[in-house]
């Protein structure tokens, strides 16, 4: 399941809903991305995430389907926020549930790597010198390219 929304989310309630009644699940790996108050050596007071309504959802669905194809997942969830956020705010939640932990961990990390590098989101940070659009990070590309080296 994927959701793209401006609202915050409740991590415990989401994981609970994802797994409820599915007693073949042995583990749920999850990742919560939070807004940091620094980027490099800059102090960040707020951030605005822009997305491409329609395409963003399509991309997230495509990536989730790919994870379901690669790993034996019993349930999965991607929630990604857009709009303006403050330091400490939750930005993204990925949760993957499987019978065994390795599949859950790997697919969760796979989804996060793709979200960081392929999903149509753009970040504008508010610094003491004003707002600036963030440039793409090569280390994120390297993380995502792991998954195509097989």
């Amino acid at each position, binding site marked *: 399941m994927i959701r793209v929304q401006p609202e915050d989310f409740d991590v415990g309630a989401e994981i609970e809903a994802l797994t409820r009644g599915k007693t073949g699940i042995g583990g749920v790996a999850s990742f919560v991305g939070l807004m940091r108050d620094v980027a490099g050596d800059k102090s960040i007071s707020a951030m605005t995430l*822009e997305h*491409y309504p*329609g395409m963003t959802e399509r991309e997230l669905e495509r990536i989730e389907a790919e994870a379901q194809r690669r790993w034996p997942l019993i349930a999965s969830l991607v929630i990604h926020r857009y709009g303006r956020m403050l330091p400490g705010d939750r930005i993204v939640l990925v949760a993957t549930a499987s019978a065994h932990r390795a599949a859950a961990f790997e697919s969760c990390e796979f989804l996060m790597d793709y979200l*960081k590098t392929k*999903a*149509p*989101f*753009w970040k504008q940070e508010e610094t003491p010198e004003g707002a600036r659009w*963030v440039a793409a990070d090569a280390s994120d590309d390297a993380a995502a390219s792991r998954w195509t080296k097989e």
Partner: protein
Amino acid sequence: MKLLYFAHLRTKIGTAEEQLDLPPGIGDVAALLEFLKGRGPKFADALGNRKAVRVAVNQTYVGWDHPLKPGDEVAIFPPVTGG
């Protein structure tokens, strides 16, 4: 066709969305980008560095040689930085 601009390309160009009749002779993404750069300094500045421009047609990432047709939704944006 419908053109969409995102993030700093949107900021530089000064518009988020426009309708454009596909000009004669513009058959693919590369040709469209060249056409747009010729519209003035804002477009030339925003689209000048090809490495920093990504394009989706009908909400799917495409390469420079992707063909265009009337009615397409063409989105132009910088590399994504989400999450």
